[in-house]
């Protein structure tokens, strides 16, 4: 028989729970082997689907046919530039001009970014990827938290928990200053095997936090510590990421 908490564990896995409910699930999972196994299953199923399942993309031929049919329907070529040109001729060709405007507006609608609940995740993930792709991963190189913490004091307005967990496989390599949603954030950088783990910390506002999130195979784990929001991001496995989060939580009592 599945555990009666299985649905909630799944919702937790899907990042659908608020912080309090997520905490309850985390506590439950520590003592429920069935739900712990369920989470592992969900993770491997997701990995399988996201890494192996065919994703069907529209080819150029189809794009062309759709563009052509939209053009016929709108009486204007479906490119925003032509559509805006149509607006200029509004008086002369009201029908086609209006249709062209409609088309431009509809495309603008579809271009709206992911919903607000995901904006924070996207922002953190972008900051993480930006740092990975540029040479700007680390501002201060150190395996010593006594060097990293004072550096943050001079460069950001947050003092993030930092520790060296090399014995557990998470090596502190340094820190950098970054931005998340316009706020200054401190990032503590760890290395775990071949993976880089960024731990973002910023002053908590009224943002609604997911507990975990996954984007293109990269995982994020969010939590709060005192007045700080923390987010660990990496392409390492979710379990490995959670392992580091556990260590950080253990060594950082909420700021008094």
């Amino acid at each position, binding site marked *: 028989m599945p555990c009666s908490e299985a649905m909630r564990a799944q919702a937790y896995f899907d990042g659908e729970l608020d912080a309090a409910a997520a905490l309850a699930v985390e506590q439950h999972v520590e003592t429920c082997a069935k739900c712990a196994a369920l989470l592992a299953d969900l993770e491997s199923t997701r*990995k399988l689907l996201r890494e192996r*399942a065919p994703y069907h993309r529209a080819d150029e031929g*189809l794009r062309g046919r*759709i563009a052509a049919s939209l053009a016929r329907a709108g009486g204007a070529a479906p490119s925003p530039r032509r559509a805006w040109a149509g607006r200029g001729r509004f008086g002369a060709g009201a029908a086609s001009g209006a249709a062209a405007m409609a088309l431009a507006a509809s*495309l603008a609608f579809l271009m709206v970014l992911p919903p607000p609940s995901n904006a924070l995740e996207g922002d953190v993930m972008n900051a993480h990827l930006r740092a990975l792709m540029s040479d700007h991963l680390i501002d201060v190189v150190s395996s010593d938290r006594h060097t990293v913490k004072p550096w943050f004091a001079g460069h950001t307005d947050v003092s993030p928990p930092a520790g060296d967990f090399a014995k557990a496989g998470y090596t502190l390599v340094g820190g950098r200053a970054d931005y998340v949603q316009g706020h200054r954030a401190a990032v503590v950088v760890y290395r775990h095997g071949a993976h880089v783990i960024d731990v973002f910390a910023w002053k908590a506002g009224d943002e609604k936090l997911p507990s975990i999130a996954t984007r293109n195979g990269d995982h994020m784990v969010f939590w709060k510590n005192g007045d700080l929001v923390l987010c660990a991001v990496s392409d390492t496995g979710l379990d490995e990421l959670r392992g580091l989060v556990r260590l950080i939580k253990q060594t950082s009592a909420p700021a008094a």
Partner: protein
Amino acid sequence: MPHLDAAYNLARWLARPPVDADDIVQEAMLRAYSSFETFRGSDGKPWLLAIVRNCFLTAVGRSRRPLAATVPLDDDVALGDPALFADEPDAESVVIQFEQGRRLGGIIEGLPEDFREVLVLREMEDLSYRQIAQITGAPIGTVMSRLARARTMLKTRWRSDEPGAPHAMQ
């Protein structure tokens, strides 16, 4: 055209011959274009995918499915099964990956439509329960139970289909 890939991916996973995914997507883009005035919201992706889904249902002769209130419980619903497959080895040949993708695709195609669509929307399009409920017209609780079933079925079939020793990992 934003979200066109998402639209096409969903259409491909829903449609089967003789219904053509290209036709569905083309029709959906036209409908989206002509009805965007009625769109009230901030996120175009679920809106467009709902249109794709409706176009598919129209194409197969169902206007809108009645809400499937009952999710039959059968053999493979054990939600708490132990992990049944391990991560793939790193040094894996392209051929094996391709073969796995093909086999996985076949398994997804073999899932009942209700389950297949929630799985595609959640795992491939990364949509929330609420967005999936919006697209499929099913209550969130139903979305959750279908998703659980779909994941369990996929996992079970992936394992039992495995060439070689299917129980080696247990």
